[in-house]
């Protein structure tokens, strides 16, 4: 039996191994498709939890771990720290669902630690991964250049239990997190809230995150957002440099990927309420109700075409007649509907013949990109036409998120 080579040694002549860790099945599906690319020449392993990822890494040397932050069980940050301790030569890319623009991928690759913002551009992600996987420098675990506020937010939103050591030329301090809450801070002789604000005033320096089982004490009992806002206010007042690009308002204003970022806080229910997708409307709809449903449907279809690479979204009756469509390119959507109906119907017939039941969401890949079909109820199906390198996971998530609303809108 051949021993597995150590990472960073003879593996340079072999395929690199990338481990994708995410508890969202769709995201794993997307990343696997995205990374399974000849340019990367890598084997893609997947794990649905941090614990599973560690189990895989105990058996298989991995060059790069691409992990979500927010996962049930072990968080991505804890996983990253564990990896840093046990496999220091393994690079880690952390994915976040933060909407703030400072998380753009071109500034993520600093000091060997990468942040990828969801929703991400597939080509960019592939580029960052390619650079990381072909870079055999070890993961230092120290972040230089990323704003402190960003790191604090990451810890809060990832439900981390950790100690964040901040070292500047004239001062240092430590902020302690427990399950994402800021519970203690020390700086010089100070502790508590004032120590936190003092630390947050630091410009530049080095940040080191350590995994801790328990903070030494609890001296802070304020929400993270309040602490961060107050810290920013104090920085403004003191005239010290601002965290470039850090925008607290933006965090509250709009979440471009709510299905992901609200996965743990009942976001789906909230979304359904927001968009009127709760109770099914009565069968005898008024014109106003129909207009509203039509509007909702157009909004939903429009959402698909905002996904990079998606150029057409059609809702098609099973008979092939369009219920509605939005296309950003010049295509005959009526004809797409008719043809898709034949293809969809044929696939369903095959499933019935084979005793496979009804058809689920599926994709046909063409040279110039995929077409995704998804049944919505018994009477209609969605057709999403995309270019190559489109974010398929995002398409799938949006389909799942809006399936009920679309079904109701499609009901004649």
């Amino acid at each position, binding site marked *: 039996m051949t021993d597995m080579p150590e990472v960073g040694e003879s593996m340079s002549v072999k395929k690199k191994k990338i481990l994708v860790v995410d508890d969202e099945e769709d995201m794993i599906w997307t990343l696997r498709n995205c990374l399974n690319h000849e340019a990367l020449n890598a084997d893609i392993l997947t794990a649905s939890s941090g614990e599973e990822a560690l189990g895989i890494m105990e058996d298989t040397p991995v060059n790069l771990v691409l992990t979500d932050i927010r996962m049930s069980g072990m968080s991505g940050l804890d996983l990253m720290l564990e990896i840093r301790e046990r496999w220091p030569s393994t690079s880690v890319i952390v994915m976040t669902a933060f909407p703030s623009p400072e998380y753009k991928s071109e500034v993520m690759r600093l000091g060997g630690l990468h942040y990828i913002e969801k929703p991400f551009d597939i080509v960019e992600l592939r580029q960052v991964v390619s650079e990381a996987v072909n870079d055999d420098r070890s993961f230092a675990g120290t972040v230089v250049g990323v704003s402190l506020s960003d790191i604090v937010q990451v810890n809060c939103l990832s439900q981390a239990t950790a100690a964040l050591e901040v070292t500047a030329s004239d001062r240092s301090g430590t902020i302690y997190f427990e399950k994402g809450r800021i519970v203690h801070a020390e700086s010089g002789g100070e502790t508590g809230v004032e120590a936190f604000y003092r630390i947050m005033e630091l410009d530049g320096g080095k940040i080191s995150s350590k995994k801790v089982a328990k903070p030494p004490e609890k001296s802070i009992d304020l929400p993270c957002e309040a602490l961060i806002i107050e810290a920013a206010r104090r920085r403004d007042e003191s005239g010290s440099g601002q965290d470039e690009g850090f925008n607290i308002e933006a965090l509250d204003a709009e979440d471009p990927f709510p299905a992901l970022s609200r996965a743990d806080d009942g976001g789906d229910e909230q979304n359904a309420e927001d968009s009127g997708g709760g109770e099914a409307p009565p069968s005898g709809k008024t014109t106003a109700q129909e207009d509203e449903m039509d509007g909702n449907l157009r909004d939903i279809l429009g959402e698909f075409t905002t996904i990079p690479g998606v150029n057409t979204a059609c809702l098609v*009756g*099973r*008979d*092939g*007649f*369009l*219920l509605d469509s939005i296309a950003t390119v010049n295509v005959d959507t009526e004809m797409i509907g*008719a043809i898709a*109906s*034949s293809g*969809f*119907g*044929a696939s*369903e*017939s095959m499933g019935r013949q084979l005793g496979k039941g009804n058809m689920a969401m599926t994709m046909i890949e063409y040279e110039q990109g995929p077409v995704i079909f998804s049944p919505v109820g018994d*009477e209609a199906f969605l057709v999403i036409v995309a270019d190559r390198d489109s974010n398929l996971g995002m398409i799938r998530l949006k389909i799942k998120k809006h399936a009920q609303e679309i079904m109701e809108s499609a009901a*004649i």
Partner: protein
Amino acid sequence: MPEEGKILDIARISFLNMIKEMMTLGGVAAAKGGLIRNALACAEKIKEVDYPDFDAFIEAIRNATNPITMIEGKAEHTGDGIFGLPACPFAPAISNYTEVFGSLPDGFAEFTEEFNKPGPATSRYRIGEGAGVSPFCAVHQPLRSAIGDRITIGGKQVRIYQLGCKSGAGKKGFADRLIEEAGVDRSVVDAVLDNHMCCYCVKLE
């Protein structure tokens, strides 16, 4: 004298079998859509025509110069823009098929049920929704409506509403929503169907 052999009209027979094949391969809904689109494609080949008034439109039906009569023969105007068609244009195909094979292909009832479901096509062309009594209605009704869309009377657009239909076995089907939308009394449609196989009305926009 030996009994004379039965002769298949291959065009008709294959059409009926084709419907069955379409249902098997692509499902009933896709088959319905296919037949409707086939009808619409046929209608697109019909030249647009304008009649100076409604009398001229009716006269063109009587003398079989109206585009609608091209596909179904002469209909009878029973008043208020309501027409009754004495014979289903598909009757010979049905007769020929059943004469040779004994019964129509399986699944036609399911197809008819599917055709009667409300949907974009039934709404757009004012067809089905109860007025379908056989799969052939999925060809005939949209074809007539789409031809109607190519006809104007005094410059005003003709809109045809399918109100009802009667099967060869005498079972009547009524499109209650369309009957109401057209402002016609259901009893009038019922009466027309007593003596005709198909009932529709013509409205001007």
